[in-house]
């Protein structure tokens, strides 16, 4: 008598036979096949459109060049397209600042209030908007078009072997692609990787993909310091190549760190997996562009402003409260300066990265506010003056390069770290996810600075 659940399970076990699942699945397949044969008419053509496209997009010869070309085109169009609107926005905000200043004067407001609200809050916020909005409004829609077209799985297909040999999961390519948008969102997307070991690899290394908060920094520095010597026409191309180089370096670091972790703390062999290459679909252009611009760009921008506005305030306060002869800001930057210099950076840059922990978007504005608070310049409305601020503070191309490297490699932003904790529920791995990149960032910039200086290149 089967009168308990245990007995039912025992009884059913006695009825089992090996590979009964094969039979079940096969029967299901045969049923669907017979239904489909009756009711679906397929076109006669041997190869379909997607397969033909795959023969090009994942071909042994063209697969990789096309992938790099697409990356290059996306970055180039972002840089090239963002130039003019960025400058226009900056001008617009500059005019707004003049009116605000006039209004403050007319009302007889005290100068500290003007400094706090206009030079701190307003200027900080307007920097973020004018530097970030145009590239994001170009980058996100282009990326969304590629995503909706179905190109991302092909990237995973092309690069799978690299990930396999570094002990990582092939789907890590997909989570990395998400990282170009936002690392925190990408950490959540690592849920598509089932094996806990490989998922942890994907989480720990995701930060080496520059997110939208870091694109503007990379683009700005590359165009000011790397491309400046070239003719106007090719400057955007040079900037693109530099930024691409940084992205490729990030990918190499990802693979290397994955490989090292696979041999040490996260030992193991890659788990088995299957990758579906869905048919290419023609994206709905306007819809995709609209969604990407409105949902993503504005969302990210809102977050940036929410963080940037108080950061602007704090920076201004730090720069204007004096202890002895110097402001708090100067005390901090002087303290950090020797270490910064050893990394080819300076105290201001390190301070900007530290205060920029909540969001990478605000690192550059904080840095500029720091420089402006101590320098003579009060208004910046074009690239020449912008570069002058940096150069006045002793920047060379090495400083720019190392800031780019540090930006690429350093600890993830606060939101991402918090997300990592939520996803891993492990303090140890959360700490490591910040410590590993930071250690790499310090090592790489230290070596770069000493090699470049040792060779007398700056």
């Amino acid at each position, binding site marked *: 008598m089967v009168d308990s659940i245990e007995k039912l399970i025992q009884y059913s076990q006695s009825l089992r036979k090996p590979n009964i*699942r*094969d039979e079940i699945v*096969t029967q299901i397949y045969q049923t669907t096949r017979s239904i489909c044969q009756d009711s679906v008419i397929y076109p006669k053509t041997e190869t379909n459109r997607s397969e033909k496209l795959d023969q090009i997009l*994942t071909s042994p010869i063209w697969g990789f060049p096309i992938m790099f070309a697409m990356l290059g085109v996306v970055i180039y169009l972002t840089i090239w397209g963002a130039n003019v609107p960025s400058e226009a926005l900056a001008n617009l905000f500059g005019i707004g600042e003049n009116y605000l200043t006039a209004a403050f004067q007319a009302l007889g407001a005290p100068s500290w209030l003007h400094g706090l609200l206009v030079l701190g809050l307003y200027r900080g916020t307007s920097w973020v908007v004018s530097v970030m909005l145009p590239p994001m409004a170009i980058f996100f829609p282009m990326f969304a078009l590629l995503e909706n077209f179905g190109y991302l799985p092909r990237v995973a297909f092309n690069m799978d072997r690299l990930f396999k040999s570094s002990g990582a999961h*092939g789907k890590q390519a997909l989570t990395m692609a998400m990282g170009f948008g936002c690392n925190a969102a990408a950490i959540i997307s690592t849920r598509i990787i089932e094996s806990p070991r490989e998922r942890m690899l994907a989480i720990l290394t995701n930060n080496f993909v520059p997110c939208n908060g870091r694109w503007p920094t990379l683009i700005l520095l590359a165009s000011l310091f790397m491309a400046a010597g070239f003719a106007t026409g090719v400057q955007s191309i040079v900037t693109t190549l530099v930024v691409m180089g940084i992205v490729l370096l990030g990918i190499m670091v990802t693979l290397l760190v994955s490989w090292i972790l696979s041999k040490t703390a996260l030992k193991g062999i890659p788990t088995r997996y*299957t990758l579906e*290459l869905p048919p290419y679909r023609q994206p709905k252009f306007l819809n995709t562009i609209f969604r990407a611009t409105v949902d993503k760009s504005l969302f990210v921008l809102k977050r940036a402003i929410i963080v940037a506005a108080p950061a602007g305030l704090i920076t201004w306060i730090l720069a204007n409260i004096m202890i002895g002869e110097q402001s708090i800001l100067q005390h901090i930057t002087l303290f950090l300066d020797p270490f910064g210099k050893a990394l080819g950076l300076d105290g201001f840059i390190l301070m900007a990265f530290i205060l920029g922990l909540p969001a990478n978007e605000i690192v550059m504005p904080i840095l500029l506010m720091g420089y402006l608070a101590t320098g003579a310049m009060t208004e910046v409305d074009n690239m020449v003056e912008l570069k002058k601020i940096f150069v006045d503070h002793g920047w060379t191309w090495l400083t720019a390069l190392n800031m780019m490297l540090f930006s690429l490699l350093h600890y993830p932003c606060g939101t991402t770290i918090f997300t990592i904790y939520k996803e891993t529920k492990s303090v140890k791995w959360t700490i490591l996810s910040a410590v590993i990149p930071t250690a790499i960032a310090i090592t790489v910039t230290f070596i770069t600075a000493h090699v470049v200086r040792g060779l007398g290149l700056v």
Partner: protein
Amino acid sequence: MVADSKGAFPLCDAQIGDSVRITQLCIEGAMRLRLLDLGFIPGAIIKVLQKSPLGDPMAFRVSQTTIALRKEESSQILVEKLGDE
């Protein structure tokens, strides 16, 4: 993987453009179940579509979808060749 007497060979050794019929899955566990779900069932006809630029994985057309498998998996799926079209 040793080919059996009927001329079956591992799927990974099939040529691009070949159409083959699956004779046997030599994988156990979760991967076997996943492959079954995707249509890699004995008797199914598979078309070899593409190799990754780096040589592995390979993409196959199975029940009107494109699935890529690493060599570890495709070497454990035994197939026989269908006549050239």
